[in-house]
Each structure stands twice: as C-alpha cells, then as structure tokens.
C-alpha cells in the first residue's frame, strides 16, 4: 500500500503525462485557427497570400484599419449599448423567472411536480417556430419594443432543468436544519440555497447572457426602429450582405479588406463575454458546498 504523501506511482505519472499532453495538443488545435482569425482582423490591404502565410505576418505590419472603421461607424456605439441593455434586462428577467421555477421543481415532495416538469418540457420540444411566436408578440403589443427581444426567450427549459438538477443535489439536512430554525421557504431560498448555488447560477446566467448578446434573429424580426437595433444586426449586415442590387462604388470601410472587417467585427462582438468569463470563473470555487454542510 502506497502512502499518498511519498511520490506518485508510475501509473499516476502516465496519467498526468497524458493529461498534460492532451491539453497541450488541444491548446495548439484551438489556438491556431484563433490566431489566424486575429491576424486576419489586423491584415492590411496590401497583403497578398494565403491565410496560413497571414498568420506569420509581423506585428509591425499589422493594420488596425478594420477596428478603426468599425468603431468609427455611427451606429456601432449605439448598437453596442442596445446590446448591453438587452443583455442586462434579459439576464435579470431570465434569472428572476428561472431560479424560482428550478427551485420549486427540485422539491421532491411537491405534489404535481412531474406534471409541472412536463409542462415546461413540452414547449422546449414543440418549437412551433417563428410565425406562431410572432403572432403572439404582436398580439401582446410588443412589436418594436425591446422587451420583445428578450422576453420570449427569457426562460430556457435547458437551463431550468440544469439548475433544478443542482438544487436537487443540495443535501436535505441543510434545508431541514433551516426549517427547524423557523426559516420560511423564501428565506431558505435566498439566504441558504442561492449562496450555495453560486456556480450554477453564474453558469446559467452566463449562458443566458451569451445567447442574448449574440441574438440577431429576434431583434431582426421584432424591432423596426433604427435606434433600438443591437450589435448583432449591425454585424450581420456587414457579414452577410447579399447586395444583388449593390452600388459598390464606395465602401464605408475604405482601407481595410472586407475579411479583416468581418474578423474584427466578430472579435468586437465577443469582447464583453471574453471579459466576463474569467470573473464568472472565480465563482466556480471548489468545495463551496462542503463548507456549509460541515459548518
């Protein structure tokens, strides 16, 4: 029998070697195309060559024309803030709706629980599509209002069930000892369950945030006013212009090649998420659950 303190066994060495090798391999596989896209966004108009050669272009040859063009775009700042609005209100509504729902469904002794679960599963699977949803939004009078963008998708059954699963994992002893101490259900939820569920609430919040941030379909469908348009609309117009009747004599982007514009626009759109994720990561601390049961 080996002591855990003295050195690691041979099989364990192999294990960790494998883990590290695979991670390095994944690093390369993920990084290379990402790097290719980054260099693409900084590519000057004068560059000739394949994307592969482009990856080795020296940084001093890079051109920030694409980024300048995008950020100087009139609508860009406004679209950016519209997106932030939609995301913030969207996540707030989503969590406000999802958390109580998930918690209620996690209570095993609740009468009618299975019935309720089925109720939320049905719409998830019978995605009736665009027209029935559009008809509903119109009847609610929400056309051309920001709420039309985030309310219809504010509760995702997927996220709800994931959260429910986590709530179910919280030991009953915790809940019982709180009830014995005279706590009401609301207090229980807010003072005890939620702090323990930080990882899952943060994750789900992040999922919602990303889907709201990237959503172009609902804004395109429901919004008409130009001053409400969020970022994905702007980007999709740039990325996917068909332009059959185009008057292409003048580009709004001047110096930068169109592929650089596309790549740059994608990175600009991703920035808030990229910044937010490391913060969220901190909430994934090991052993949060453990601490509360013991203590």
């Amino acid at each position: 029998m080996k002591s855990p303190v003295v050195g690691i066994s041979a099989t364990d060495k192999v294990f960790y070697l494998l883990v590290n090798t695979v991670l390095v391999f994944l690093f390369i596989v993920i990084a290379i195309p990402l790097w290719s896209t980054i260099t693409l966004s900084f590519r000057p108009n004068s560059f000739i060559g394949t994307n592969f050669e482009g990856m080795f272009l020296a940084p001093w040859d890079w051109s920030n024309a694409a980024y300048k063009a995008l950020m100087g775009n009139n609508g860009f700042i406004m679209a950016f803030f519209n997106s932030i609005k939609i995301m913030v209100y969207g996540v707030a509504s989503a969590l406000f709706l999802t958390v109580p729902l998930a918690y209620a469904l996690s209570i095993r002794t609740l009468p009618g629980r299975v019935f309720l679960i089925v109720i939320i599963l049905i719409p998830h699977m019978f995605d009736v599509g665009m027209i029935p949803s559009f008809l509903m939004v119109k009847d609610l009078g929400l056309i051309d209002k920001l709420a039309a963008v985030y309310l219809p998708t504010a509760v995702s059954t997927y996220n709800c069930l994931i959260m429910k699963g986590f709530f179910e994992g919280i030991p009953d002893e915790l809940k019982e000892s709180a009830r014995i101490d005279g706590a009401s259900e609301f207090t229980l939820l807010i003072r005890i369950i939620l702090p323990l569920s930080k990882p899952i609430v943060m994750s789900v919040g992040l999922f919602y945030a990303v889907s709201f941030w990237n959503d172009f379909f609902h804004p395109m469908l429901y919004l008409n006013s130009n001053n409400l348009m969020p970022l994905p609309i702007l980007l999709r117009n740039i990325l996917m212009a068909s332009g059959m009747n185009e008057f292409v004599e003048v580009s709004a982007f001047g110096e930068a090649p169109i592929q650089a514009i596309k790549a740059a626009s994608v990175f600009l759109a991703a920035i808030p998420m990229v910044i937010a994720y490391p913060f969220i990561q901190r909430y994934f601390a090991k052993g949060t659950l453990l601490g509360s049961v013991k203590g």
Partner: protein
Amino acid sequence: MGTKRMLLVAMMVGLLLCTPLMAQGQRETGGTGPVDIELWYGAAITEAGPPPEDWVGFQIIKDKLGINLKLTALPSNEADQDVKISAAAAADNLPDLFMVRREVWLRLVNQGMLAPVDDLYAKMPVRTPLQYDTDSIGFTTIDGVSYGLASPGSIARNEGVLIRKDWLDKLGLKIPVTLDDYMQVMKAFTFNDPDGNGKNDTYGYGAFIEINNFEEGLGRRMDPFFGAFGVAGTWNMTKADFGLNVRKDRYYDAMAFIKRMVDDGVIDPNWLAYKKDDFRAAWKQGRFGIMREQNAAFAATSNYAPFDKNFPDGEWIVADPPKGPEGKQSVGVYTSQYRVYAISDRATAEKKDAIARLLDWMSSKEGYYLLGWGVEGVNYTLKEGIPIAAGVPDAEYAFTGPKGQPYTQLRNMVFYNGEVELTSRYPTYITATSGKEMSALRVLVDMQSRPWTAAIASDTLPPPSTDLKRFYEQGVTEFITGRRALNKANWDAWVAEFDKLGGKAWEEEARSVAVANGLLR
C-alpha cells in the same frame, strides 16, 4: 418585516423591471396633423448607419408634405429581408411603404395584402416620367392591376469579361476570340507563370456560384461560356425557341466545356467554395487572369485600390466573351432590374396620397439631390452640375466619407440611372499607386457594348419549387465536380428525372405566363 414581504417586493420590482424597458422606438404622434408613414427601405450602403435623427430631410418632409416619416432599414441579407417582411405579413402587420423582392411581393399580392397603385402614377407628375415606364408598370401588374411601384434598380449589362492584359503581354498572347482561344489562354495563365514570380499559383479563370431567379444552375459568373452555346441564363426568351435552357441540347455541350476547364485545372479550384467576398479578394490578390465582374466592383476607387497597390503594373481590359462553334457569343442575359416598393392594403386613402406626395417630392430636384448626395456645401459641391465629393469643408462629411454616407442611405429610392448619377458615382480618377486613369463609367459603357442576350422579364416568370430548384443546382454541380459522370447518357437521364420532378410542368407554366404577357420576342 419578514423575508416574505421582501420577496413580494422583489417580485413587484421584477415585474416593473419589464414595463419601462418596453422602450419605445421613435416618438409617435397621433391624431390629426401630420400623417405617419412607416417606410422600410433597402439601405444603399449596408455597413454605414441609418440617417441620423437630426437629418434635415425629416423636417422638410414634415413641414412641406405634412408627413411624419418613420424609417426602418431592412436587413442587408436578402433572405433576412424576406423573413422579416413575411413575418410581418403573416401577422397582418405590414408597414405602409416597403421595398420587397419580387417572389415575396408576388405572394403578398396573391394573399391580398397589397394595395393597388394604379391611381398613384398620375399623382406623381415628376416621378412617373423618370421612373415608371410601361415596362415598369407591367412588371408589377397582375390581372390588369398594378400592385407595386417598380423603380429602376442596378443598370443593365453592367458586367463584362475582364482579362489581365499584362499577363497576355508577358506571355506574348493575343486577346482570345473563340472558345479554343480562351482555353489556350487559360492554360497559359495556369501553367506558364504569367506573373513571373516563379510560383505555380495562378489560374486561368476565376468565378463563384452566384444564382438568382433568372440565372440558375452554375450562375451568372459562368454565363460567358454558356453564352458561347446560346444557352446563357435560365430561360430562352425567343418566340421561336422558348424554354428552359437546361433542357436544350447545347446546354450539355456547354457543361462539357466547363468540365474540361475543371479537369484541366485551369479554373481556380476554390471556385465552388467561394462566396462573393472571397472571389473578390482573390482577383485582387492576382489569383486568376480571366473573370466576369461588375464595372463598379472592378473599377471604383476603393475597389480597385488594393489590386493597384499589389500590382501597379497589372492591367485588366474588357474583352468580348468567347465565340462558340456556331459563332454565338454572349456575356450573359440581362433584364431590367427593378426595385419594387409596395404599399400595404391597410393603408388608408389619406396615407396613399401622402405616399404619392412623398415619392414625388423625392424625385423633385430638391429631394433628388438631398437623398442622393446630401446638402450642397456640406456633403457635396457642384462641378458642371455634377455633385462631387471634393471641395467640402469637412471631408468626413462628404457623401463618400464615413460620416456623410448615412445621409444617402435612401438614394436607391431616387436614382434612376440618369446622366448626373452615373457621372457622379463613377468619376474619372487617377489611381494612387500606379497613376493610371480609371473610370467606372468608361468601363460600364465598354461592357454594355459587348454582345448580350436579352431576357427581358425572365425574372417575372414563375419560380420553381424548392425541391426542383435544389435538384437543378445540385445536379449541375455534381456533374461538374465529377460526382456524376458527365456523358450524354447520364445527362439525358438526369434531364428526364428533372422533367419528372416538375421541370416540364415548370416550363409549360412559364410558357403560358410569357405568352399571356407578350414577353417573347
């Protein structure tokens, strides 16, 4: 106190969170006074922003015409446009005036969602002579009633076959005339290092699949080769030989020629995977020496500049399309391109009149210049009556500059391919790097003088079903890639299957429409 109450309060707050955030769009006025008109337009420059709220046009329209104009820019992707308009139609929520593509427009007419506009032509004394001729009115007439206002779209025959003159010179070749000449030149461009850089990185022909409702199959970029066999475009619109070109014998010969190009490796192998922007980037990087391209996409300042910088000695010339075995040649098919603006059936008579006033004003001298270029002295100056971007105090606000472009987003509603526009949009200029004199207008005139096949109104013929369309496109591509062996037996079998799937019926349906509307010449 209790957490219960706290929670109730939180829930109330949550609900209230939603309400003020149902933020309204632009302010709406109601009641008597100015009429509210909602206009969904196709942006002229997809990536620039919409006209700002302080645009002087809004004020003029309100004061002079009594209209509160509310603008919505349609998505720049055609599929997205269709979806947005279709969804609005399904909910009976169409805007007052909107731009719409013909297929969707036709369906809306059949569903009774559009207002007849025959009475409006007379109410637009300035605009109608400029924009709505008999062809235009015919384009939107179904069963004797006109349901849309068809404005001229992009100018016809604005594409051409372009060849790298410097490559021809370097290899000592003459401008090709026949199909065989073209094949020789393409081979030379591919294998004889025409750019002299010692690398085997050039090709003869470059293209991408660009399909629309009257240029099916392999699309318009390959039409010069189909034209050599007299089968360019989807339809043959002659009285003598009307029908789907794909069902004609010569189509097989054209396919065989293109297959030879693919097999011999003289066409850029990426052509099937390219999207438009990739294709354009490729010719600017000197990948191939022959292509079919649009005049402005080729010769306008910002489009030609990258090529010029990379290849200061490079030179493209417009050439005649290849001549086939029977002496036929054609760059492709052309029709009058229209941009249809429809009016919702829900619009009141007052609104329809307002729309007529609005459109007529747009085509007046004041509206034309305002929407087309902006404010004189701020966005443009006049030189011999032609608006130019030079001479304005702040270059960023010139109509070609980043801040000025949003002001001209509505220009598609007033342009009619008149002299002033063309000269202004396609000025003669000196290139930055090589000092050449370039003019998209000269290129346009040159391209228009080449052999073309008339297929007027072929875009008004009934479209195929989704499955038939896929069968057509998938089939021809599979023959070209070699997935299906291209020989006469296989081809005939495929055409027979095409007919069975509905191809023959499609042709017959189109024939009756064409005859009924007198479209065959």
